[in-house]
């Protein structure tokens, strides 16, 4: 998007919101139960320092680490 498409008088933040609304991201919301709305547990290699419960090390990251030692 170039500057000419920006509406005058709108804040950058509002323009960004408009852009994101038009980008179709909301389409995923219907599947949010699977992807975003379900109870969250950290599954990748990060977690909160205070509450790391729920993290599960995956086969993949274990292998990835082994691989990183070549």
């Amino acid at each position, binding site marked *: 998007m170039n500057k000419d498409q920006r509406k005058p008088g709108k804040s950058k933040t509002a323009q960004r919101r408009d852009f994101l609304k038009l980008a179709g991201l909301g*389409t995923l919301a219907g*599947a949010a139960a*699977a*992807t975003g709305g379900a109870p969250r547990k950290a599954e990748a*290699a990060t977690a909160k320092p205070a509450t790391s419960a729920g993290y599960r090390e995956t086969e993949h990251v274990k292998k990835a680490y082994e691989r990183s030692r070549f």
Partner: protein
Amino acid sequence: MAQREEILEEDQYRAHFYRLLSRLLVRAPDQDLLTQLSTLNGDDTAIGRALDALAAAARSATPDTTTDEYQNLFIGIGRGELVPFASYYLTGFLNEKPLARLRQDMATHGVARADGVSEPEDHIASVCEMMAGFILGDFDAPMPLARQSEFFDRHIGNWAGRFFEDLENAKSADFYKAVGALGRAFLEIETTAFQMAA
């Protein structure tokens, strides 16, 4: 954790995408996830078309086929077809400076590896998970957009587009081609949106 109402709808959608990408890249999808993905119905946007393609790919996939694919793509014998770590994409080697920089920024933002985890944090699934957490305020208060943008530029925007493109074109990929296309389309939107707010 922050109340969800405080987070703009568009930002919650962004977090959903990061979380979905993280979930698909940390391990192969199970039947539940494939079933849910197969019901996605995209609109006529780049993202909508990518979601339609992902739904179609999910309908013709099974946990067995995606597990094999995942194995060949990311694990392999010795190594997989792709190496989905920032350090590898940015330097050609694992565990180099990009990982050190990420660890510094994680410390700044109150994120740490869980106990007992020893693998590098700069895996694509991991940085996507962090972005979702920053947006939603899982680690601390929801992160201001300017800080999100900075983290994105330093740890995602500078390599993940190439990774998703590689995934889209990987020989071992079938279902994961659609994941690559979705990731690439989403990153383009993120990049543009961050630039607009800058």
